[in-house]
């Protein structure tokens, strides 16, 4: 079996490093499997192959968005790995996709790891604040770039160097109970983001609106935009009403003055 040349490995590794940092900032879409697959296809000299792998993975995560800091399967790295190793294997697009999906599921753990690791920089920054060390705080924030970048670049680099056979073996030996458990945990994690939002919103005062939103989605299966529009209508009504109340109050105040 052929292997990738040095330049291809470096290009794909660098892409992974940059793509994740793009995703959390400007978001030009480099971290989306579709665009990553297209890039990998270009690097490997088989654009159509990369497009197929990327698009298939993309359709699997359509509409899934990181919410409140929850982790998603890393289908960007998976698209790079699946396209690169799939092309050189000569076994076709299906093989590339079949390799990419479990890899992406496993790599979600490194996203969690990067977010953990950054806690260290936050603690250091909190300490620098005590001595008003501004440079120190700035440095801690910038260092976070490497946590994110390396969490994607290292696995991509390793997979490309090791080749598809070893990658498949590793995926096969990863204990089933753990990967099934991590998948369940991944589905539950948005709960934390939602609970944090609720903590910072006046939830107790406006529980009724929370219920309305829930009923619309859970019982009526209303799409999110529809719910947002209902929410906007309710918000407008409340804004008007509170305005009227103020007007009444200020008029009463004026009466008393006379």
């Amino acid at each position: 079996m052929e292997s990738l040349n040095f330049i291809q490995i470096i290009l794909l590794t660098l892409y992974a490093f940059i793509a994740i940092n793009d995703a959390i900032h400007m978001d030009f879409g480099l971290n989306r499997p579709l665009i990553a697959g297209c890039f990998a296809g270009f690097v490997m000299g088989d654009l159509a192959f990369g497009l197929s792998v990327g698009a298939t993975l993309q359709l699997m995560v359509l509409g899934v968005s990181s919410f409140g800091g929850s982790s998603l399967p890393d289908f960007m790295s998976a698209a790079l790995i699946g396209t690169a190793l799939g092309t050189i294997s000569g076994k076709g697009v299906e093989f590339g996709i079949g390799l990419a999906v479990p890899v992406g599921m496993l790599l979600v753990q490194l996203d969690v790891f990067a977010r953990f690791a950054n806690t260290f920089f936050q603690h250091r920054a909190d300490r620098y604040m005590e001595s008003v060390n501004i440079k120190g705080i700035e440095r801690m924030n910038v260092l976070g770039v490497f946590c994110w970048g390396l969490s994607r670049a290292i696995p991509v680099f390793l997979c490309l160097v090791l080749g598809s056979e070893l990658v498949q073996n590793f995926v096969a030996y990863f204990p089933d109970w753990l990967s099934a458990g991590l998948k369940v945990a991944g589905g539950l994690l948005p709960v934390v983001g939602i609970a944090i939002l609720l903590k910072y919103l006046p939830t107790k005062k406006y529980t009724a609106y929370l219920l309305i939103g829930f009923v619309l989605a859970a019982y009526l299966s209303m799409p999110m935009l529809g719910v947002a529009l209902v929410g906007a209508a309710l918000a407008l009504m409340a804004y008007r009403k509170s305005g009227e109340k103020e007007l009444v109050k200020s008029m009463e105040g004026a009466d008393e003055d006379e």
Partner: protein
Amino acid sequence: MSKISLQDIKKVRYRWLLLGEAAWNYEKMQGLGYCYSMIPVLKKLYPDEADMKKALQTHLQFFNTHQEFAEIILGIDIAMEEKEGAASLEAVSAIKTGLMGPLAGIGDTLFGVIANTIFFSVGSYMALEGNPIGIFLYLIWGVVRVIMRGYFIRIGYREGTKLIENLGDKMNRVTEAASILGLTVVGALIPSVVSANVPFVFKSGEVEMELQAILNQIMPGLIPVLLVLLVYTLLNRKGMTSFKAIIFVMILGIACSAAGILG
């Protein structure tokens, strides 16, 4: 005379644009990134070391909202601190926590879910036919958003100054309305984004009953709701951080999966 120039605002904007979430972490989330972004302005406003420390402390606190909409909050914040200096920091903290929830709910829906679904469904179907053109749609949308964000921070800054001038109840009314919208959206997010499926099947003789179907008859999204309630209660306890809550949920997920309760 204003102490903050357009140049300073641009510096904050580019810091947030390029490195705002670089140190995103489970404990304070965007806290460090927010502080980092505000530093050019803080340097201008607080020559006094004690004030500076207080400002740094305020901005290192927990913060998390939608990437794009955060620039509105940054703008308002700059305007408030420029006007009242260190005395405004408590109010700034309140505005930040007051606005981040509603803006996160709205932003994640509009930008995160809806825009992505539209652009990538079109792009993917074109790609499957071997046409890479669909990809450029998203790149263009990316440029549009970067430009839009420039307006966000300036609108925040301009309106922020006005808010200070005729403070009073209007700000409360806006926050109240935004919270209502935010909560409605969050209520819908619970059954939509949390996935918890119960694979358990009752068997008695020939009759098979899926537990998930029974749960759905009681209430769709019952397990997500219970979990949100549980984590919400936990977070309201002293000493509980989002970091610990994440670990708790991960262990819970793995345990429930191993026990065959969820899968």
